[in-house]
């Protein structure tokens, strides 16, 4: 549990951080909250020669409303998401989901940007960002570019972010009135990753689903949308038959990896079950 030696850089601006990344290249890793990277370094699974710590870049923290969009700085911590009145009012799925991530100590350090940029399908924010249809702002030597969250996750630990880029912000459309939402997460214990989890954002027209987006956590090599289930749901009422069919459609696309949390069969079944539960809860909130 002792990492090998490494150099440590603590830039105070994004430009400085991008410059360091360009200069140090592949030997450097970006340090955000550190709750994925540092354990991997302590186990010597990751041995970066240098760390570029973003924690002193104030511009990367905070939640604001700009041009009709909610902008979340990538270094905003989980606890800051939970405490944000703006998010509670405009994107309440995020504070609700953040409460289900790890434990209070981790949430005090862990950041939304680190959680997304790591590209781990077990992390919670990727599926949530996909369900929110968030836009990710990447900053590199040539300035900023924007990538939809739905196109960001290419494989486990593999994203659309280039080696010389830093994830700097997450942009989200505020919820329309009567938008239902839920994040249901099955986990073994506090601090654990999800056995399976589902994020739902939904609107209803009377008793029928008007629009729905479903993001799935830790049931495939990347976070994913349950597109077949989404399409099937539009225009349907959420009765038992519909929910069973949704669960079947979700199970059909899940490709989880077996581990001590469960085998493929269990995780697949739980992906369906978590989706059903998220839909029921989201529907309650549409009223």
């Amino acid at each position, binding site marked *: 549990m002792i990492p090998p030696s490494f150099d440590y850089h603590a830039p105070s601006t994004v430009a400085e951080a991008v410059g360091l990344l360009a200069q140090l290249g592949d030997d450097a890793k970006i340090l955000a909250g550190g709750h994925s990277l540092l354990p991997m370094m302590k186990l010597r699974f990751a041995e970066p020669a240098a760390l570029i710590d973003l924690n002193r870049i104030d511009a990367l923290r905070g939640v604001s409303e700009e041009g009709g969009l909610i902008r979340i700085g990538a270094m905003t911590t989980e606890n800051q998401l939970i405490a944000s009145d703006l998010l509670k009012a405009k994107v309440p799925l995020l504070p609700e989901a953040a409460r289900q991530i790890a434990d209070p100590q981790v949430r005090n350090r862990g950041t939304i940007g680190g959680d997304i940029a790591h590209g781990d399908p077990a992390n919670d924010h990727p599926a949530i960002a996909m369900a929110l249809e968030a836009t990710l702002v990447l900053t590199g030597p040539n300035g900023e570019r924007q990538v939809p969250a739905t196109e960001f996750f290419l494989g486990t630990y593999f994203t659309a972010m280039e080696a010389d880029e830093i994830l700097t912000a997450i942009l989200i459309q505020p919820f329309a009135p009567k938008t239902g939402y839920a994040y249901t997460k099955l986990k073994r214990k506090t601090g654990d990753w999800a056995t399976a989890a589902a994020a739902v954002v939904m609107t209803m027209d009377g008793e029928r689903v008007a629009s729905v987006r479903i993001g799935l956590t830790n049931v495939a090599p990347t976070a994913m949308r349950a597109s077949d289930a989404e399409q099937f749901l539009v225009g349907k009422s959420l009765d038992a038959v519909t929910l069973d069919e949704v669960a079947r459609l979700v199970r059909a696309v899940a490709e989880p990896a077996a581990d001590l*949390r469960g085998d493929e069969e269990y995780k697949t079944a739980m992906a369906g079950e978590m989706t059903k539960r998220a839909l029921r809860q989201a529907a309650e909130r549409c009223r």
Partner: protein
Amino acid sequence: MNAPLKEREQALMGIGESRLRKEDARFIQGKGNYVDDVKMPGMLHMDIVRSPLAHARIKRINKEAALAMPGVHAVLTADDLKPLKLHWMPTLAGDVQAVLADEKVVFQMQEVAIVIADDRYIAADAVEAVEVEYEELPVVINPFDALKPDAPVIREDLAGKTEGAHGARTHHNHIFTWEAGDKSSADAAFANAPVTVKQDMFYPRVHPCPLETCGCVASFDPVRGELTTYITSQAPHVVRTVVSMLSGIPESKVRIISPDIGGGFGNKVGVYPGYVCAIVASIVLGRPVKWVEDRIENLSSTAFARDYHMSGELAATPDGKITGLRVEVVADHGAFDACADPTKFPAGMFHIVSGSYDIPAAHCSVKGVYTNKAPGGVAYRCSFRVTEAVYLIERMVDVLAQKLGIDKAEIRARNFIRKDQFPYTSAFGFEYDSGDYHTALQKVLDAVDYKALRAEQAAKRADPNSPTLMGIGLVTFTEVVGAGPSKMCDILGVGMFDSCEIRVHPTGSAIARMGTITQGQGHQTTYAQIIATELGIPSEVIQVEEGDTSTAPYGLGTYGSRSTPVAGAAIALAARKIHAKARKIAAHLLEVAEGDLEWEVDRFKVRGDDSRFKTMKDISWAAYNQPPEGLEPGLEAVHYYDPPNFTYPFGIYLCVVDIDKATGETKIRRFYALDDCGTRINPMIIDGQIHGGLTEGFAVAMGQLLSFDEQGNIQGNSLMDYFVPTAVETPKWETDYTVTPSPHHPLGAKGVAESPHVGSIPTFTSAIVDALSHLGVTHVDMPHTAYRTWKELKRLGVAQ
């Protein structure tokens, strides 16, 4: 009782008072002093090169690259320890264990070499630089496979050794077969029984996982020839004896100090290779050496618990009266037999397996087996395999109840040892000291309204739309603790007594030094309360010291709930010696005969005359300046207590669970724990102990597991997977008690800390099985994780 008398009594904060823990101020302010807090001038750091393979021959070890690193002082392997004859060491179980792997490795994470360096970081880098070349050997993980004729030979060092420490060895991977009870009478009971039941069950490998891992700081002074070692030990005096025997340093020049210990739960009883290596390194280099294992090392290499494959059988009459018990166990001890049991008992006190029941004929046999897994087999918050025994008998009684269609509370009441049968000698020869099981059971059933719970369960079962399955678990256990009478119990030949030395100072305060060592039990609080009541000295001015072998009297340490039953008795009897001397001094001061005095809370007074008295404070002063003629000055005493018997705490635990049919998650709706630990010294600490023990029991039953793949790779050996509940997962505990004092203990106290662990684990299983019993399920193995429970629900067609 007049008011001032009561006030005086309360001022003492003695037995029966919920005195706040004296230890907590330093712990909650971060002012404790743990082994890893110890820093000594010139101290070096040790790290261990461990085997990545479970079974392999070591072809070659190349230390050159590591030795060439700046700041590295030494790299030692078994070959370096050989000239000192320290490459192997004896275990507490009569086996030997490799200190560093000698020619081959026999479990993953085994100690292969050590590195000593200037700091912890250099040591870790140097570990990576040590090159070890292995030739893989076939691995055997399952003890049944290990006993097959053509199974790989794990212990080549034992070739040709047909006699082990506990009798004949019949196979190269066989360690011992130990039996208790009477086989012929048990067989006879079964031959004629109208009803029999049989159930196989596996109690999986778990780990005590104390918050503080194991470690030490060894410091050999080459000038004085003295060795001082700070160590995470539950038994510092035993460590001193072992270290002296191994090193040849006279015991008088070995000082072992257990400072604050962050939990032990049996994990800190044994002597580990890391300790021996750090001591050797300090002797070789003449400088202090620190070794502290990390969490993965702790879970992977220092002692595990359980790993018992058990098969139980009950014979009974049609109305559920048990007439016979047979138990067979295959015990997986890993690659070395390093169980921590009293020497004569290779399966500990497993023969308490007849439980709280009057069973006329019983027999058990336990077969110890080597596998390619880490050694251990410690009592994880229990008294030497009592947890396994209680699990077996409580499960079997449920199985019998189910077969006969008798309620599980009713069948227990029909088989309990009755109050008037105590002292009761079991078919295995234990003499149960006291108990009143029927009263305690009824108290619990009334408290939870058992009938209403059963009615609710019936309604739930009748409703196909119920999202949950409801189960009610019940356990009525008896423990055997307080090891133990030296005629039966010893560790490496040292009887399992314990000790106390009390010194009362001239101004009336006192210090007590003990052979035990607290790891969180609150000894500094409770021991002082015993002295307060015995001697009339306020507990606030009584210091309790433990853990330093240079100052404390010899004792066997703290594990197996032995502190109160054994050391608690030593305190009371040491205090009574002082009390007797104090009486002489009081008589002298008051100029009356001793027989004219009576003791009243904190003073001797002349019988019938409240105005003529001497307080303990007065007497303490007089003891140092005007003792009666012929009496030596001073006021102190030492007592070594060899208990005449074990103590037998018991409890009645009831648990209500709701299992989610879709996810397999289990919600503990209610847990009601009634404990009878005899006399209660500090009710608040007892409650805390019970809460802690129940939480650990919950962890074991619902989540803890160390499993291995076919190659012998350990699974789940970090806190990411290994289940240590937080406040979020922990259920609400309801506690209750009855008081049935031990007749042979000076205070009537029986010990309590392990009962909740021992008793709760089968209660959870009982509840889970109860929820599924209407579907024909008689047993489900632990841990009852959502995943494993879902698999069972799926098999039964309940889950989709």
